[in-house]
């Protein structure tokens, strides 16, 4: 049977792997390093890709996950402090992005992984379940809880903001 090249169209795959790495490690050079390393390994072990086991993106994300879990520490999550940036000078989109990124960074490792796979890599709950070796139902529940926690973190930030502003103005 003719083998399909998993890296035939690399650009969308690069974006998805990068988004996954950025959700886990923070947007920047570390995510770029992980993405590059993932593709280097993918090129090296291209023959090991089995299309019956899943889509190329799932295979690449498995490699990226191993890269992150193996060598890169996720404890130092490097995100810009949104409070340090003067919002009047920035586009709304940038503020939104940074706020979400900071909120995701405060999640625990498991929740961050799920958010990264769901919203960074744009995988379905079923694909995440296959990748992590869990049940789809369990992943859906875990994702729902992670989003609830994230919503809570964003809410806390909103509530604490007027206090911070008041303290800053003193």
């Amino acid at each position, binding site marked *: 049977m003719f083998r399909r090249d998993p890296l035939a169209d690399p650009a969308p795959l690069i*974006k998805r792997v990068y988004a996954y790495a950025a959700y886990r490690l923070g*947007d920047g050079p570390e995510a770029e390093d992980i993405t590059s390393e993932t593709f280097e390994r993918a090129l090296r072990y291209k023959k090991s890709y089995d299309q019956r086991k899943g889509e190329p993106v799932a295979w690449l994300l498995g490699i990226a996950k191993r890269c992150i879990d193996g060598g890169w520490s996720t404890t130092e999550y490097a995100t810009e402090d949104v409070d340090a940036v003067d919002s009047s000078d920035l586009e709304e989109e940038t503020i939104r992005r940074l706020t979400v990124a900071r909120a995701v960074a405060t999640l625990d490792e498991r929740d961050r992984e799920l958010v990264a796979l769901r919203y960074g890599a744009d995988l379905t709950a079923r694909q995440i379940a296959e990748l992590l070796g869990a049940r789809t139902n369990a992943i859906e529940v875990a994702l729902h809880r992670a989003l609830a926690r994230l919503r809570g973190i964003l809410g806390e930030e909103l509530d604490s903001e007027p206090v911070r502003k008041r303290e800053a103005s003193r």
Partner: protein
Amino acid sequence: MRYWRKRHEAFDLDAELRASRPEPAPEFISRLEARVRDDGRSRVGSLRVAFVGALTAVMLLALASVGGVGYASSAASDAAVTVQRVVAPSDVITVLKRSPAIDQYKKPAKKKVKAKKKKGKGTKGKVKARVRPPFTG
């Protein structure tokens, strides 16, 4: 946090997470894409060379099975000889020794010269040839 304040009551976190998905720099994408494509291209090139080699081997085997190799080699050597004759003719003209013309006008055979018998000093040690007695009628 002005953004969040505006949507404090009901914001779609799902959509926000999708919209604020981190994007890599375009230079990074193009660089990595080129790296991936280059690797694929070199693999395709080596595969092509391997395919051509395999095809040649198969053709040679098929030819050898019907004696085509010997035929081709003899044809090649004949061609080489012809080319050599045309390009560098030899100075010595070789004449065929036997041809109808030579057979017709062949040189007369040389008369055999009888070797003179040397009168020996004696027959000692030699066997004398027997001579037939003369015809007497």
